[in-house]
């Protein structure tokens, strides 16, 4: 059962960072451009359409993480402590806190995209989106690496 939950958590995280990366790249676009190349198509994504999906995916991924967290404490953290892998333990400490900081940002992030006109507070929208993307990517990397070190089995 825990393997299934971990897989769902990981897959949701993949969808999340995919959407966030698209949006974070697109939000820095300074002017309209033709979608002639792959990168231009990537930049031209309509970030507004990603917002609700990102919020739902972020909350869902966080809830899944919260469900499997006790098993990490019981199974994985003890093994890492025994092996004196302090960097791995510390990386997870950073991940658990980063995930919550990103979670706290979601209401203002949603508001900036959905309620503020596109021409207003553009810098805040860009930095909010990029910061949440960075936090999600950092959490994903740490989770993936820790799963490689010792999975929840």
């Amino acid at each position: 059962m825990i393997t299934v939950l971990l897989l769902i958590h990981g897959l949701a995280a993949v969808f999340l960072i995919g959407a966030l990366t698209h949006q974070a790249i697109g939000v820095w676009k300074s002017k309209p451009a033709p979608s002639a190349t792959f990168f231009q198509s990537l930049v031209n994504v309509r970030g507004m359409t990603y917002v609700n999906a990102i919020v739902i995916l972020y909350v869902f991924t966080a809830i899944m993480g919260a469900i499997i967290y006790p098993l990490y404490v019981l199974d994985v953290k003890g093994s890492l402590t025994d092996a004196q892998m302090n960097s791995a333990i510390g990386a997870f400490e950073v991940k658990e806190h980063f995930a919550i900081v990103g979670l706290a940002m979601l209401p203002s992030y949603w508001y900036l995209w959905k309620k503020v006109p596109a021409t207003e507070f553009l810098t805040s929208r860009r930095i909010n989106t990029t910061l949440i993307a960075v936090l999600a990517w950092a959490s994903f990397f740490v989770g993936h690496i820790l799963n490689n070190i010792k999975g929840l089995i």
Partner: protein
Amino acid sequence: MNRLFPLAVFATVFAVVYYGCFVFAFTPARFYPLIGEVSMQDLPRTAGPAMGWYTWIVIGSISALVASVVAYVVPKNAGEKFGAVLSWAAPLAVALWILYVEKHWFFDQAAQ
């Protein structure tokens, strides 16, 4: 809510209170996953490792909700520009605070 400032206050207070609880070890209740119990007291080692993460989230979210309701009384004209900056500056500051506090896991040789 139809204003940015209270939502920025929510993000700020949630992040600061949550991580403040961790840094200052304010954990009124702990979850013991080995025995599946929540306790307001320190249980013996036989109860297994304790988790404070859920408690910090609850304290942070309640504090943030109260603060954002209070922030709602700030006039819209006065708070929106500040809220736009606060919405990312405070979480960024907390993220840097986290990295600073947790750096001992990576650089403190005594902990290795």
